[in-house]
Each structure stands twice: as structure tokens, then as C-alpha cells.
């Protein structure tokens, strides 16, 4: 009997060593994007920065009867005759949609670079520098405002580039390779779209070019993804080499317009200076308020205090000022005392479900950030819609412009009032997630979530109430965590909706509805 049990134990041991260890991504195995509507008129949709869809010219393609085009077809046939499993995998991956895949790549980069720098030996903190991006601390520190802006620039540039792409597709109306030559298989699905310039290559070009600004350490990595996508486009029979080359060039040219704007949007000065940091303290003290203090040791300078001055996509600087709500309760008021007591009581009695909510929405260090979380929520629903790439890009741009402007407005408010966190007012308040290193009023999560829920609810009305419920849960999570007063979240939800409505206004007039 003992022997049997022994063999049972040994057998179990071998079974467990053979445990399946594969956990796969939720979007790993999507079908090819099959748009229900090709949005053939998208070449006339309202662009964001481009003054015209044909600001950059695209050469007239050679005829499909020319030897150059025949050579293009032969390249495709060469791929299709000897496809490796890796190439098939790339075709399947990219065929789910370029906007989706590049959005996932962006989220990955945000998470990778979302780590606050480690302190210097003298207790100060080094600041990442775009001039020396590979040195520690690597550039960028993709905290929530940085991420909101980066998602917005990439999404907006993708949108303008695809509007231009659609304009030229319509103008040149070149058939897809598999339509010209029936021996070519359509391995990434069929569309009614003209294939010149290739929309996938436009996305690859515009996104890769944006990286020189946003993630300079990743240029080589992203270039590799661009090559994989372009190989997939050609090998799948979706586009020829000339479709792809024209698309990538157009995308890169349009990205330069966005890069030029970004270099002048004041984000480079958002870190501030020691004199500016000190000024917030004296301003708050002059108003008889307890000024915000970093709760980190050594004290870390406040996160991007001048981000409220960044030039937004939807709201100009006067609008940002107009969006400012009234002040939070005075730090010496009975109301503030009561809210602090409420925060302490909450943290002492958090339920497991409240902890789950805190964890789910924390979106802190090494995550995609709250705007990235809303990108993921949007992408999950957008996948179900069978939209064209240009509509995908338009809706992602609307979301991310709302998120960037929510960040600008929120940071403007935070540094205008410079209000302390609950744990600063009462050190007994221990938190269920890290305390963000910037003032409390108003809650960034509430603003990001409310702005996102507002524009997403406009885009997908059937999901509007679900988005509102999610936004409210995200706001609540910060109160459950002990890092925000209730008022921070209530007011943040209101201002966030106001920002989101600017995106709705744009959506109603951009020609896509």
C-alpha cells in the first residue's frame, strides 16, 4: 500500500511538471477585420491638423498592366508559395486591424516606461531627458499626463493620415492584388477598398515616425514591427510593394506635422523648476490653505505641475480656465475634517469587493495608465463593431483627444488649488494603492473616466450607461483606496464630462456621422 502511495506521489509530481503554462492575451486570436461599411467618403472627413487631405501629394500609381506592377505581383506570389508559420502568424495578427494592433503596441510602451525614477544619493530625483533617452532614468517616464498626450498624438496623427489615405484611395482607385490576379490568395480578408496607398502601411509609417518624439528608445523595436506589418500586408495579398511604399511615406509625412506641433505644445516645460514648485506652496499658504506635500521619502517634486499649460486638441487655454471648478473645502474647515474622518473610516473597513475595485482601476506604476485602460475598454468594444480602419482611427482619436484634454484640465485644477491628499491630513490613513505624487483635487481617475465614458457613450450609445457605471466605479475606487476625498471624485466626474462633451461636439461635426 505504501508503495502505491509513493508511486501516486511520484506520478503527481510528473503530471504537475507537465502543467500547461500558457496564458494567452484576450486579443491573440481575432478574425480578420471585415468592415461592414468601407466608409468610402472618409477622404472628406474633417482632419485635425492637416488643412487638406491632399496636403502631401502621392504619386499616381503605375497601371496594373505595367511590368513594375507585374513584379509587385510576383513578390506576393513568391511569399505565398513559401509562407513560414511565423509569417502566417504575422498575417493573422495584423489582419485583425492596424489601429487595434498599434494601439496595443502603444499601451505596452506606456506600461514599460511608466516607472518613476529612483532617487539620487543626495535625495534629489533625476529627470528623464529626451536629449539623452537611453541614460538612466530612461526617457520617458510615461505617467498619466505623459501617456494621455502620447495616446492622443498617435491617435490623432493616425486619423489624419487615414483620412488622407482614403482621399487618395478614392482618387486612384487601384484594385487589390487578389482582384487583379486571381492566383493570389486574399489571406487577410477581402475589402471593396482601393489598395493604393495601403492603409496598413499608412498606419505603420505614421506610428513609427511618431516614436522619434514619444519613445525614442523604441525606434528600432517599432521599426521591426513596421516591417512585420508590411510583410504581412504584402504576403497576405492585401497590398503590393508599391501600395505599401506609398502608404508608409504618406504616413511619415503626416506624422511630421504632429511632431512639429508637439515640440511646441509646452509639454517640454511641464516638469517645472524648483522655483515654480516652491511658488505653489507659497500661493496656497497665502490663501490660508495647507499646501500639498509629497508623501514620498525623499520628497519627490510634484508630477508635471505645468502640464495644465499644454496646448490641447479640443480645448484652448481659455477653455481650460473656464473648466476650472470652485475650490475644494478649505483645509481648516469642518467639512474637510469630516471628509478626512470619512476617509479614515473607509480605509479601516474596506471590503474585499472594494479592494478588487481598487486593484482593477489602480492603473499605477508599470501599467497602461487610466487613459490606456480606457483605450483597452474601447478596443474591446470596437472589435465587435466591424468598423473600417479609418473609423477605428477616428473613434480612438476622439477618445484620446478627450483624455489628453482631461489631463490638461485636471492638472490645471490640481496645481491651481494644490490641495493635500487624505494621508497628508491624517497619517493614520493607510492606502490600498500607492498615493499619486500630485495634489488631490480633482481626481485624475474621475476626470479621465468621465471624459472617456462621455465620448464613448456618444460613439456607442447602447453602451453609454455601462460606460457611466464603469466611470463611477473608477472614481469610487480612489475613495475606497484612501487616496482621495469624495469631493475630489464628485467634482472630477463633472468636469470630466464637460471635457468629454467637447469631443462629442467634434464628433457631431467631423463628417463621419
Amino acid at each position, binding site marked *: 500500500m505504501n508503495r502505491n502511495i509513493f508511486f501516486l506521489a511520484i506520478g*503527481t509530481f510528473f503530471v504537475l511538471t507537465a502543467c500547461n503554462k500558457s496564458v494567452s492575451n484576450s486579443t491573440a486570436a481575432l478574425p480578420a477585420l471585415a468592415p461592414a461599411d468601407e466608409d468610402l467618403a472618409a477622404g472628406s472627413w474633417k482632419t485635425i491638423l492637416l488643412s487638406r487631405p491632399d496636403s502631401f501629394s502621392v504619386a499616381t500609381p503605375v497601371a496594373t498592366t505595367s511590368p513594375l506592377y507585374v513584379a509587385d505581383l510576383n513578390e506576393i506570389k513568391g511569399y505565398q508559395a513559401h509562407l513560414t508559420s511565423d509569417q502566417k502568424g504575422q498575417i493573422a495578427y495584423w489582419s485583425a486591424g492596424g489601429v487595434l494592433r498599434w494601439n496595443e503596441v502603444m499601451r505596452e510602451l506606456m506600461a514599460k516606461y511608466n516607472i518613476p525614477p529612483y532617487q539620487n544619493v543626495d535625495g534629489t530625483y533625476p529627470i528623464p531627458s529626451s536629449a539623452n533617452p537611453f541614460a538612466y532614468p530612461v526617457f520617458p517616464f510615461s505617467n498619466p499626463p505623459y501617456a494621455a498626450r502620447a495616446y492622443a498624438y498617435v491617435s490623432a496623427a493616425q486619423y489624419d493620415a487615414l483620412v488622407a489615405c482614403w482621399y487618395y484611395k478614392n482618387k486612384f482607385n487601384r484594385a487589390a492584388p487578389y482582384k487583379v490576379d486571381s492566383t493570389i490568395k486574399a489571406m487577410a480578408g477581402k475589402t471593396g477598398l482601393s489598395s493604393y496607398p495601403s492603409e496598413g502601411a499608412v498606419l505603420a509609417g505614421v506610428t513609427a515616425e511618431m516614436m522619434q518624439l514619444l519613445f525614442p528608445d523604441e525606434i528600432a523595436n517599432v521599426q521591426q514591427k513596421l516591417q512585420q506589418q508590411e510583410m504581412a500586408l504584402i504576403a497576405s495579398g492585401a497590398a503590393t510593394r508599391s501600395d505599401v511604399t506609398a502608404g508608409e511615406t504618406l504616413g511619415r509625412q503626416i506624422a511630421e506635422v504632429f511632431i512639429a506641433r508637439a515640440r511646441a505644445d509646452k509639454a517640454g516645460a511641464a516638469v517645472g523648476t524648483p522655483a515654480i514648485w516652491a511658488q505653489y506652496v507659497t500661493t496656497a499658504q497665502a490663501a490660508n490653505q495647507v499646501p500639498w506635500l509629497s*508623501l514620498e521619502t525623499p520628497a519627490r517634486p510634484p508630477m508635471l505641475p505645468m502640464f495644465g499649460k499644454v496646448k490641447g486638441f479640443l480645448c484652448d487655454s481659455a477653455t481650460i480656465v473656464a473648466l476650472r471648478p470652485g475650490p475644494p473645502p478649505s483645509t481648516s474647515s469642518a467639512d474637510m475634517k469630516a471628509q478626512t474622518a470619512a476617509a479614515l473610516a473607509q480605509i479601516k473597513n474596506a471590503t474585499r469587493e472594494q479592494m478588487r475595485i481598487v486593484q482593477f482601476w489602480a492603473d499605477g506604476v508599470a501599467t497602461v495608465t487610466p487613459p490606456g485602460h480606457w483605450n483597452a475598454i474601447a478596443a474591446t468594444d470596437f472589435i465587435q463593431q466591424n468598423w473600417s480602419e479609418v473609423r477605428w482611427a477616428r473613434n480612438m482619436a476622439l477618445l484620446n483627444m478627450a483624455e489628453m484634454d482631461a489631463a490638461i484640465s485636471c492638472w490645471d485644477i490640481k496645481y491651481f488649488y494644490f490641495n493635500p491628499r487624505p494621508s497628508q491630513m491624517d497619517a493614520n490613513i493607510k492606502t490600498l494603492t500607492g498615493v499619486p505624487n500630485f495634489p488631490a483635487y480633482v481626481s485624475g481617475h474621475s476626470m479621465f473616466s468621465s471624459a472617456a465614458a462621455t465620448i464613448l457613450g456618444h460613439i456607442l450609445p447602447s453602451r453609454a450607461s455601462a460606460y457611466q457605471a464603469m466611470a463611477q466605479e473608477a472614481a469610487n475606487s480612489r475613495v475606497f483606496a484612501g487616496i482621495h476625498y469624495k469631493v475630489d471624485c464628485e467634482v472630477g466626474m463633472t468636469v470630466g464630462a464637460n471635457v468629454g462633451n467637447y469631443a462629442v461636439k467634434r464628433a457631431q461635426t467631423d463628417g463621419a456621422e
Partner: protein
Amino acid sequence: MLNCKKVAFSAALALLVAAPAVLKAQTDEDAIMMDKKNFCIGATYMRSSWDHYWEGTFKRNNQNLGTVSTQSVMLMGTYGITRKLNVVVGAPYVWTHATRGTLHGQHGVQDLSAWLKWEALDLNVGKGVLSVYALGGGSLPLTNYIADFLPLSIGLHSKTLSGRLLVDYQLSNFFATASGTYTGRHDITIDRDSYYTTSLHLTNKVDMPDMASYNVRTGYRSDWLIAEAVFTQMFTLGGYDIRKNDMPFPSNKMNSTMAGLDFKYTLPKKWKALSIVGGGMYTLAGRNVGQSTSWDLGAFYVLDFSHKQSKAHNSAAEKK
């Protein structure tokens, strides 16, 4: 001699939380068996703390954590199915705390662990006795505690299965024991829908790399006293390093090298059903774990359901 020992904490226990608990001395890693129908029950208190830790290979402290401590009270029992086959079970209640910063400590019932222990062989070799044991065990989270709140989580919430081979040699009152363990860990579910390791994962499931360890111990062993020195190393077979100033994560590559001392004292005469155990352990080196120092103290009592003289034994002691 009345021997029953502390069950190892679940191998899933976060090293950042309580490094020495996993391979603590006086565990199911000894060469002691309970007699048939003898049931040994006991409780142990353990306290472990660290103020330095390793992010990958970078050793640092953190003034936003101060000293991180883990306390636990573990209830356990060992039952002799036969004198060659024992079952060992245990479960701890765990508290965590950081002396500085704002992070909230956690507490709760952690994992149930259970081992079947079989004495496969004992032979006279030279002037001493060589015995070989095979153990199979597993652990199961008993509550829905949060794994993804390191370093203050009370555990890693993974179901595990372990296999262990243990060899013991006793010469007079001196002994040496060596064991090797392989632990397979089931993936865990966390409360968020994406996370970054060395790439972004769009899922709430986390692959937990398997673990391996070895443990050697040597010292004095008699009917009334065991005093031993312990050395152990633990390796995560996979996993990834915490980057500088990043947060720890359950699937980190947690490795450690520890050394310590343990004793077990069995009371004389009519109190011989009662024994006192204790010890200390120090982390010499590590990777993605805290450099913990720990101590523990516990008491055990043997209940004899065989209506014969209650007894625990080890082969060596009996053959000498």
C-alpha cells in the same frame, strides 16, 4: 521522543513577504516519523522582517516601506497512518505591516498545505543508518486574499503541487539530512485585466513559474533534543526581475539563500507529550526578495489513539 514538526508554509508564499517561511527549518524536511495512530498537533508563531531587498540584483532599502514585517500563527498536525506513512497538514494566519510610507498592511488566513510522507528505505551503512523518504504535497489558498499587492500581500494565491526526496544519515547522536524539492505552481487570477512583466499581458491570468529548492541540515539529534544548523537555497524556474523602482509582482524571479539554527526540546517524564520548537533564519543572498531575518517559537502535543505507548521515531535512533 515526541517528534512532530511544523509544516512548511505554502511554497507559494511570497518571498518578499516572508522569505524564510518557505524553507524554514523544522518543517516537513526532517527524518522523523509519527507512529501509527499518533496525532501531533501544534502551533507556531513566526516573525520575519526586512528593510533591504533586491530589485533584480540591485540591493536597496526603501524609506517608503521602512521595515516590512510578516507575522504568522500556524496551526498544524501530523498523523501516523502507519509508522512508515505520515500525513502533515497546516494553515497559517498572516499579518503584514510596513513601518513607513502609506501602504496598508494585509491580514488573513493564507493557504492550506498538506504532505504525504513515506519512509521508503532504511539501512545500516557503516556505523550509522541511512534512511530515504519520499514526500508529495500541495497547497491551496483558503481565502480570496490579494496576491497582487506585494510586498504586503499575505501570499501569492497559487495552488501548488510538490515532490520531495529526502535522505538522512545518522551516526550516534549526530546526523545530516539533505532534501530536494520541485514545486509546480498553477497560474493565478488577479484583479486587473492587464499587467506588464517583460511584455504587456492582456488578461487577468498570470503564469506562475515553477520552483525548486534544496535544503541541508546537520547537528545533534537525540530523544530529548534536536539542535541543528540549516542551509537552504530556493530558485524560481523562470520569472522576471523587478526593474529599478518598479513594483514587485507575483511572477517575479524570487531566489534566496538562507542559513539558520533550529532546536526542538521534548519535555521529560510525564510531560514528554509536549515539545517546544524554535529557531532563527537569515537571508544571505537573494533576488527579488527581502533580506529577511526571522525567528519562530512553537509548541506541540502528541495524542496517542493507538492505546499503546505514544511514540515518534526515526530509524537511525532505533537501529543504533
